[in-house]
């Protein structure tokens, strides 16, 4: 590693370590409920945030074109509120594919652009719902890593619900929350099928447990942890169809003052989804907490 790289890495790590011990909440609130940013399932709220970076690695199965191999990604995403309820997002992903017995290929995937409108929030019910549109811009990535030449548009519904409104005799379940998304990915190419894409998360918020249900005495770093299971599934629904694929991702999130860390295992749901256990990790910044008077606030409205 070059000296400049080492210096940068050292400074960056030191800054993050300095940020880490002091904790506070960021965004994604419905009443007392804080919904953290999740790694594999799109969030149900609009926010000023940046995932910088998200990295993952997993074994992918053989396809018609390539043998099985390992796929690694490093992506950067930024989301910006235009109004308090409407936001835009941009994502760029670097890909490395390494088919078994072949040399690795590196390149960028297609650029992803998104828009989301949060149409519902209930503080009492700890509920949030949004609709959004994701546009995978065809032809902007490298074909050698499998980036499609055609675009795919995915309208989707996103939801989040905390269980804090359960009756008192079920108070042990109140730290739980679920979030999810359901959408249809519609490619511009008539050769590719439309795909039903769903995501679901089950979260147990230790911060919620200790601040709203019962202080069990957990202190840093455990008092900011949110164990989570994410499940993603994709099902081609026409044009010849195809198998359902998906992953189950157990892991943990840690929500700090102005940043969040996440680490999850990636477990394939079936043999068509991959083999072995991969991982996904994310460093996530709450821009509304970092830059409350500039980048972290809606451009229009309060």
């Amino acid at each position, binding site marked *: 590693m070059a000296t400049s790289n080492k210096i*940068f890495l050292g*400074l*960056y790590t030191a*800054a*993050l*370590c*300095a*940020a880490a011990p*002091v*904790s*506070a*909440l*960021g*965004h994604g*609130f419905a*009443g*007392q409920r*804080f919904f953290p940013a999740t790694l594999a399932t799109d969030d149900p709220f609009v926010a000023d945030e*940046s995932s*910088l970076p998200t990295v993952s690695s997993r074994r992918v199965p053989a396809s018609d074109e390539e043998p099985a191999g390992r796929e690694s990604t490093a992506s950067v995403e930024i989301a910006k509120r235009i109004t308090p309820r409407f936001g835009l997002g941009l994502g760029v992903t670097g890909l490395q594919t390494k088919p078994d017995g072949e040399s690795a290929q590196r390149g960028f995937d297609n650029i992803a652009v998104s828009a989301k409108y949060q149409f519902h929030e209930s*503080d009492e019910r700890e509920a949030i719902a949004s609709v959004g549109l994701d546009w995978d811009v065809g032809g902007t990535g490298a074909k050698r890593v499998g980036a499609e030449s055609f675009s795919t548009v995915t309208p989707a519904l996103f939801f989040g619900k905390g269980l804090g409104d359960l009756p008192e005799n079920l*108070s042990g379940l109140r730290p739980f929350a679920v979030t999810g998304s359901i959408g249809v990915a519609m490619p511009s190419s008539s050769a590719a099928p439309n795909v039903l894409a769903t995501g679901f998360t089950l979260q147990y918020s230790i*911060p919620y447990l*200790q*601040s*709203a*249900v*019962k*202080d069990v005495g957990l202190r840093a770093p455990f008092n900011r942890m949110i164990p989570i299971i994410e499940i993603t599934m994709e099902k081609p629904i026409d044009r010849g169809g195809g198998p359902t694929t998906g992953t189950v991702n157990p892991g943990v999130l840690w929500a*700090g*003052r*102005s*940043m969040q860390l996440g680490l999850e295992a990636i477990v394939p749901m079936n043999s068509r989804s991959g083999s072995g256990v991969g991982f996904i990790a994310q460093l996530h*910044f*709450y821009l*509304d*907490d*970092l*830059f*409350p008077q500039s980048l972290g606030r809606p451009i229009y409205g309060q």
Partner: protein
Amino acid sequence: MKEIRLFLLALGLAAAGPTFAHAYLDHASPAVGASVQGSPKELQLWFSEALDTTQSTVEVFDQSGKGMGRQQTSNDPTVLIIALPTLSPGRYRVVWRVRSADGHRSKGRFRFSVLPQSK
């Protein structure tokens, strides 16, 4: 590449910087969900951030919904205090609404129980 590194470093330094964040309840006395013997003289709530105390409130309600006690001023901007009258044995609901010094609002509620004084 250099620009990306500088941006990452700026984000890291910003994250390590002064307190610009939502305030959350760190802990309370009586503790969240606790059962205490005898009536506490006051309720104290410790928050993660300095508060705008003019815009931050804490209230205690008994089971009939009657408000109890009176909020006190605190020298520590991260602490809210409410002086309590003698509380009868029973369950009490605490409702807090705060605004952190940089303007972020947050709120929450929890319960605690008062048990009869042991003899």
